[in-house]
């Protein structure tokens, strides 16, 4: 009886995902047919464009890298029952910290310098999110509010740094000073931008999965995150688990920002985050907060984005239409995942 209903419910959620993906693609196809004069061509570029040559394929994977880190950060927060809406600020702070360290310490060997920059980014992100966790633990301040507010404030501070003290006067575009070339990660698939940060992201996913499902800390995080009262009852000091998951979540997202600097840009500019913090939430929802699930979820997101770009370049649809199509697909997929997430939260 119990097994029956369990099988039924997992079948239902599997079907739900398949159906919503199918519906999303059907709507995308209808949109393409109504807006494109050559729908077959558009369809081809939209769905197969990202695989047509190593350059676009590499760039697609590259754009998945920051999503791996932000998605993991959000997954840890969800699993632990805390809310981190500060991804934007944390990723930005991680990036600027990497730039600052790179500029201040220009003469380290790459093998020391890169980890230093990455660590610096992770620590800054961690402290930012951890502060919200501390505020909730100490005074019960909503982490939903404080993560968002701290992050938003931080964005302005960093913008000031980029426009002011850290600006590189030698550049025409507005950007910060650059880190030494020795601190850049190697490219994996030149001429595409794909860099070794991908391996770091994959390793982070495996590490976080192990941490959550196989370690003492992860166990207590999951217990406290799924039901705080039960955790307390079972003899776990649950108060600290308002802060610890925030530290981990912020560290991952800050690390993502630092990876953007050492892997891709070498410097920081005002639009570096470009919604990566928010998209991380969507990625974590599609992955159902499973750290290993974040890998396909991040790549799926990057694939949709790359498909839209490729259709735009190679056929007659505009950027706006391409974005709308990506958005429709993405909303439908996320909505199903969101519903499932909510259903689980409610314990139904």
């Amino acid at each position: 009886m119990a097994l029956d209903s369990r099988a039924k419910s997992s079948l239902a959620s599997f079907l739900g995902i398949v159906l919503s993906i199918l519906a999303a693609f059907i709507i995308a196809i209808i949109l393409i047919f109504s807006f494109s004069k050559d729908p077959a061509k558009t369809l081809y570029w939209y769905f197969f464009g990202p695989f047509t040559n190593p350059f676009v394929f590499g760039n697609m994977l590259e754009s998945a890298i920051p999503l791996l880190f932000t998605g993991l950060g959000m997954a840890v927060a969800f699993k632990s029952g805390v809310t981190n809406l500060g991804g934007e600020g944390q990723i930005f702070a991680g990036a600027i910290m990497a730039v600052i360290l790179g500029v201040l310490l220009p003469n380290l060997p790459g093998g020391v310098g890169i980890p230093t920059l990455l660590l610096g980014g992770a620590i800054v992100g961690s402290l930012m999110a951890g502060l919200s966790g501390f505020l909730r633990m100490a005074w019960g301040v909503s982490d939903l509010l404080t993560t968002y507010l701290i992050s938003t404030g931080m964005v302005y501070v960093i913008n000031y740094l980029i426009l002011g003290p850290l600006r590189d006067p030698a550049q025409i575009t507005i950007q910060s000073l650059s880190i030494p070339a020795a601190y850049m990660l190697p490219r994996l698939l030149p001429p595409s931008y794909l860099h070794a940060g991908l391996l770091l992201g994959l390793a982070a996913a495996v590490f976080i999965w192990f941490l959550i499902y196989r370690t003492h800390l992860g166990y207590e995080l999951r217990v406290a995150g799924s039901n705080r009262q039960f955790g307390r009852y079972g003899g776990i000091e649950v108060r600290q688990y308002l802060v610890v998951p925030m530290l981990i979540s912020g560290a991952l997202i800050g690390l993502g920002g630092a990876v953007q600097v050492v892997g891709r840009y070498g410097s920081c500019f005002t639009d570096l985050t470009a919604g990566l913090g928010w998209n991380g939430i969507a990625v974590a929802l599609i992955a159902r907060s499973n750290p290993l699930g974040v890998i396909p979820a991040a790549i799926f997101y990057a694939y949709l984005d790359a498909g839209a770009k490729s259709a735009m370049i190679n056929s007659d649809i505009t950027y706006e239409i391409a974005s709308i199509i990506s958005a429709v697909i993405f909303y439908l997929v996320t909505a199903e995942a969101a519903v499932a997430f909510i259903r689980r939260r409610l314990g139904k």
Partner: protein
Amino acid sequence: MESTIQANVASKDTLPGADSNILVEMLGISKVYPDNNVTANKNVNFNLQRGEIHALVGENGAGKTTLMKILCGLERADQGTIKVDGRLVRIRSARDADRLGIGMVHQRFCLVENFSVADNIVLGKEPLQAGLFYDRAKAKRTVKALSEDFGFEMDPNALVGSLTVGQKQRVEILKALYRSSTILILDEPTSLLTEQEIKAFFRILRHLKAMEYTIVIITHKLEEVGQISDRVTVMREGQVVDSRPSASLDKATLARLMVGKEVLLQVEKLAKEPGSAVLEIRDLTLIDPTCPRPLLAGINLRVRAGEVLGIAGVAGNGLGELEDVLTGMNSRGHPSGQALIDGLEVLGLSPARLRRKGLAYVPADRLQRGSSLLLPLSDNLIVVDHHAFLRFGILRHRSISKFSNDLIKRFGIKGNMNAPIGTLSGGNIQKAVLSRELSRRPKLLIISEPTWGLDVACSEFVYQEIMEMRNEETAVLLISSNLDEVLALSDQVAVMYKGEVVALFPNVGLDRESLGGYMLGLHRQEVKKDGCWEERVH
């Protein structure tokens, strides 16, 4: 089956001279909750006469609330029919009940604290302006008029959050009246009220009765039956035991009908001498400033190794608070006095530290407190002792599997260790909680409502396990509103009423009826202020 009942009813319906005074008639109502296979109602017949106040009484779990939920569309009966005004009706939702003028006021209020009284009352049925905008002025006028008609003295502008419990209840009643309900069902309306508030509340009920409203009050307070009701229906174990005019029943008879006289569950209890005191409670008091009386008042109890102290009482008399305070889960009010485990003060310690002192605890709320429904069964089983499964901070999966499978086998838990525990049935969840707590070989076991919602076979299993713990020299504190199980398991029986221990007996020759009297506040043991309980009893 159902159709034949309906056919009979329909043919009777056409007979002339049917009792026109009967407003609501429920016939052959049966309801089984499939989750835990509990029969909440079994072929129940119930009727309401126009303009009466009808008391529906019975112990916890007797099926009163289920029956009334069926009447107001919140639950569906598996079998049976309902007639209102002699017409067969189908009540599938609260909306259907609403149309028939049936409204229910729940034990726990459903009010928006930061809305005004008027906003709360019209919520869901707001007067509109131009068919679109909320007409707040009209809502206030309507509520004010309604409140005056019924003598409620409510300020429609007051914030609900600022009201007393008694006033909130009046808001709830007004909500029903605003929806033109003429049949009001009140679920344990007095359980949260002070004496004065109860008096005022009864005045309101009489006033409503004079205006031809029909009222059901669900209660287990016997004195109220005589004070307020015209007729009384007694339920026990899902069935109606008796239904008659209240005047013809005295409290003692009522108590006997409520608790019944069926055979006790047979539990084999070895005669044995208890060991030394494990848990001692001295003058334990819990005061919540927002509550007029202490939640716990000067409790003195002692549990020795190898004995079961059973605490009986009706819900709402401090059993839950005692459970929370002793297990470190209390979040309400300020406890004072002493609680000692092996002579060491433990009052106010966190659950983590209490557990290190050898406490095992099976909570009444096994779904929210005793388990985390989304986590796998095995994660639930190891929570208290998960440190034992660590090597260098990493969980040893093989030993967790072995441990889980051992418990699953030994306790006959039907479920997969990797499936979320929430997918198990209620009985199996309780077995899992019990298996985890008992696997610790505890010094002290606090177990609350251990068989609530379980079927007979499962209950018996739980009883055997508790007995085994006792025989292995665990001190057991059993908190239960089920008198049968307290009598079957305990060596000593204490009764709580309104936060106090009103009686303490060795469990020799005790019967349900006399204990029932203590539970319902009809008697209390005279006690001296000094000395320990044993001296008082002897």
